[in-house]
């Protein structure tokens, strides 16, 4: 069955990447307990933040235009969307580079960063699938607070585009970070720093409007907010339709820029790579 699926579509040179994504998803489904654990890890901070805001809203009704209901919905959506979109290609690349497993990959007729991104996509599909029941349970538990999205068909289309482009942006960021290991061999410290800052700059910690102004300016200049934050705001109905499509174009710009950065980092990095371990 796996061979049938893998040889399905799309054809041409992309088939091997498609197969890699399918095999990765099958592997993740076979060991779904891992996906459940990591989805729980993604959701716990969102629930924790909801609890803090519930305590905070005991003394007031609105914070920067957000009601408690908006805030609860914001964090639930952030939990599922960030969990479904955030791949960690960088850790896979770091591990393979450090252990010398990259060397045989370089002799194969594939683009290694693209292969890793596709494998991560398969894993994300499995993770998002097991995340949906958890999300449904949380929506049930917080049902008194959840705001149901009301979007026009154009708004929904904009959300789908924003979601797909957000995924590409986050995947490309992961692959660019992974390339650093070609120079440093071991870069997990850099990744941890990047993602802890990313938690702030992507709106995972707080809606960006609530950040101190200096930090907010940094957040608006970085690509993080075009990850989960933008699709979540679209779904909450906080972005007018015209601005959704402006945002989608900006996301597209980031995809192109990050693809170029990845290409440059990969070319320069593989020249420097020394093939440790193995």
């Amino acid at each position, binding site marked *: 069955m796996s061979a049938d699926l893998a040889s399905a579509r799309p054809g041409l040179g992309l088939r091997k990447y498609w197969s890699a994504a399918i095999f990765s998803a099958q592997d993740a489904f076979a060991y779904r307990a891992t996906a459940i654990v990591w989805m729980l890890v993604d959701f716990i901070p969102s629930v924790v933040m909801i609890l803090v805001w519930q305590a905070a809203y005991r003394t007031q009704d609105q914070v920067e235009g957000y009601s408690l209901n908006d805030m609860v919905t914001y964090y639930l959506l952030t939990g599922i969307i960030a969990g479904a979109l955030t791949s960690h290609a960088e850790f896979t690349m770091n591990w393979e580079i450090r252990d010398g497993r990259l060397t045989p990959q370089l002799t194969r007729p594939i683009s290694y960063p693209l292969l890793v991104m596709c494998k991560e996509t398969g894993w994300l599909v499995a993770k998002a699938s097991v995340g949906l029941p958890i999300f449904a349970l949380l929506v049930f538990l917080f049902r008194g607070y959840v705001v149901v999205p009301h979007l026009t068909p154009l708004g929904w289309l904009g959300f789908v585009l924003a979601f797909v482009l957000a995924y590409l942006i986050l995947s490309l960021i992961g692959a660019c970070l992974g390339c650093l290991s070609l120079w*440093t061999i071991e870069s997990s410290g850099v990744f941890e720093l990047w993602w*802890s800052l990313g938690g702030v700059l992507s709106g995972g910690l707080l809606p960006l409007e609530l950040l*101190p102004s200096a930090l907010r300016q940094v957040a608006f200049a970085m690509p993080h907010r075009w990850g989960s934050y933008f699709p979540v705001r679209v779904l909450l109905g906080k972005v007018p339709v015209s601005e959704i499509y402006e945002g989608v174009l900006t996301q597209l710009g980031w995809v192109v820029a990050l693809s170029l950065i990845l290409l440059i980092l990969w070319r320069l990095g593989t020249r420097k790579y020394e093939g440790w371990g193995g």
Partner: protein
Amino acid sequence: MRYYADLMLGILRNCVAREMMFRASFVMSLISGYGWSLVMLLFLSTVVARVQALGSWEQRDIYVLVGTFMCVQGITQCLFETNMWRIGSYVREGTLDFILTKPVDSQFFVSARYLRLSALGLLLPGVGLVVTGARGPFIWSDTLLYVGGTLAGIAILYAVSFVLAASTIWFVRAEMGGLVYGLFDVMRLPADVYPKALRITFTYVVPLVFIASVPAQTLQHRGSPLVALAGMGLAVVALVFARAFWFFALKSYSSTGS
């Protein structure tokens, strides 16, 4: 005892040499260690700045809470984090067989074989935050209870991490140890933000509130000494439970790899 002290010294030498091989990553790990705690500090401070107080916790109490957790986290990550991750791979790859045949206590070995020295970097800002937020006057008994409570917090966090990691003997590919990262956010919160059912769970079932929240309240002269002492008692219970759990789990170990 001397044997284990010598073993720890050897482990320390080996880990220093290992970390110094990748100096740039060591420095980044040192800095990134601050990341998540400072992120939570930013979150709680922003919320408190907008609503003045979170339950009974004001800004300076939040500093003590986050600072205390940074100290607990720094010490537990230094001593145990890498080891907890490796328990899963020992089970998956079957290398636990070799550990069980070594002339050393197996729980000691799987818990202490690796040190992550860069995590100790959390102690400096952690202590700084505690000193900044601490309320006067200085009371010896409260300070002693705070130190004891924090040590108890370290023991409880180790026990929780170890039980989760050891459960990979049954859930071989589940990476249960990862759940601790999610629970970090729970431990960093003031106890009174939880709804009643969760507060009871995190006090009596999985005693996470004793890791940072209870010691922080004690230092701020707001906690009951009895509750702080109960936390120390719970730490002993948690350690005994973790040891019993390990030997119970080992009965189900069937050497899946190798």
